[in-house]
């Protein structure tokens, strides 16, 4: 499903965010990425949907070599991947409904289908009653839930989430986790960067621990912690 071989990424200012990563994530897996702030988790994730391009190494998503992917095919790659961004990235001018519908419109889906699927995910994140609000009229946690809803609405084969529970209270966080678990059970691969020790230790899944741009641990039924 997702394979990286000796991947390196140095930003233009000289910071080596990721330095030599080899990893394989199979179809239907549920993977936590943990590690201290600045370890390279977000960079690792961004390379999967090609927001960042590695300097070195190869990445395969669904057997597609991203290095060989033509630029005009990138959108189709991204439609197969749902991404929850660390900073939400909601469009300020669009309502909550439109923000989510947007991810479906790009695939030229039918109006009724869009409407049905959007309301479905809004229900899932418990924000059906705020469908007509603008993002800036929402609390931080609510914005995060919208971001999660958008990532899931087109039922992607892979769901990548960067810190999806960072702004959520424990109860809402658990709700979101149960949603992620459920869509994982339906066959979606889930990759999730997180700092939430409690969640990682309770819902025990594969844990990839990063430090200084390298993978320092990879446990198939791990716990939070990266110092050993």
């Amino acid at each position, binding site marked *: 499903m997702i394979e990286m071989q000796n991947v390196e990424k140095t930003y233009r200012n000289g910071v080596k965010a990721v330095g030599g990563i080899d990893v394989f994530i199979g179809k239907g897996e549920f993977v936590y990425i943990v590690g201290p702030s600045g370890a390279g988790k977000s960079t690792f994730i961004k390379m999967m*949907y090609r*927001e960042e391009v590695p300097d070195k190494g190869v990445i395969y998503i669904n057997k597609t070599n991203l290095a060989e992917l033509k630029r*005009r095919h990138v*959108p*189709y*790659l*991204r*439609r197969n991947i749902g*991404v929850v*961004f660390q900073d939400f*990235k*909601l*469009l300020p*001018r669009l309502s909550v409904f439109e923000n989510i519908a*947007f*991810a479906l*419109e*790009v*695939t*030229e889906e*039918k*109006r009724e289908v869009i409407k049905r699927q959007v309301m479905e995910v809004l229900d899932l994140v418990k924000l059906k009653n705020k469908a007509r609000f603008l993002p800036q009229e929402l609390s931080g946690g609510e914005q995060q839930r919208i971001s999660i809803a*958008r990532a899931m609405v087109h039922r992607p084969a892979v769901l990548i989430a960067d810190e999806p529970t960072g702004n959520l209270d424990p109860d809402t966080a658990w709700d979101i986790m149960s949603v992620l678990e459920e869509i994982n059970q339906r066959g979606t691969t889930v990759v999730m960067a997180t700092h939430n020790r409690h969640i990682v230790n309770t819902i025990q899944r594969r844990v990839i621990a990063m430090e200084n741009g390298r993978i320092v641990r990879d446990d198939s039924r791990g716990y939070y912690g990266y110092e050993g």
Partner: protein
Amino acid sequence: MKGRTFTRHVKEGFKNIGRNGWMSFASISAVTVMLLVVGVFLLLIANINYMMTEVEEDVEIRVYMDLTADEEDQVELGDNIASVDHVESITYLHRDDGLDEFIDSVGEENAELFESLRDENPLNDVYIVEAEEPHLTETVAADIAQFSHIDDLDYGESVVEQLFAFTNVMRIAGAVLVLGLMFTAMFLISNTIKLTIINRRDEIQIMKLVGATNGFIRWPFFMEGLMLGVIGSIIPIAAIITGYTYLYETVREGTMLSFINLMPIQSIVYEVSIVLFIIGAIVGVWGSLNSVRKFLKV
């Protein structure tokens, strides 16, 4: 592209204009103001050109016939002249009519003075020849000069040359001015539209991250640009039509300004309107696509 997608793009374009409020207003007013300026100048230049042409058309060749030439000679000369290439018209002016014309032209003051000349008219009979095109006058005159029974031939060499020099300068200056203004307008407008779009680079970035193709991103902006440009051309077009119509009527009815001879309305106002409409549309589309492209890389 599916039909509903196209409809979506059009709708999105319109919605964006509403959503961007002040930004849209800035773009539209830039288009409006500049098209107004361009329109006024197009009209001005077109009218100057028109008046120049009228003046040029007055250029004529005067063929003074020998005093000794009899009627037969004169007719023969007339036929000869008529056979020359590019001759538009020939008019015969008898020496007496010539004198009338001359006395008229010297003004009342001196008129009496020359009345005495009537008894012994010193003038020649004249053929007044016009060339098809003002600039052909010189060659036509050269051809005519070869015929016999001609005492003298006059087509105001220096006046014609000066006039041509002047109208050419005016035309080139006018064209340069209008072109310059048009580019200025396009530049400023597309600048404004660019700024409004730079304001939305996050939007484009996010669109790309959720898997929108470049075409899908571009279309609503394309529509929006088109609309901004077209809306921006409405006021200038309306202003040009009503303003010029009013001016034209005023000038035609006014006695004091009778020396001004404006182009008739139909021939110019609609052409200028179409030009403004097209500039508006092009500038809008070009300005928005141009700036969208900037953010489509990556």
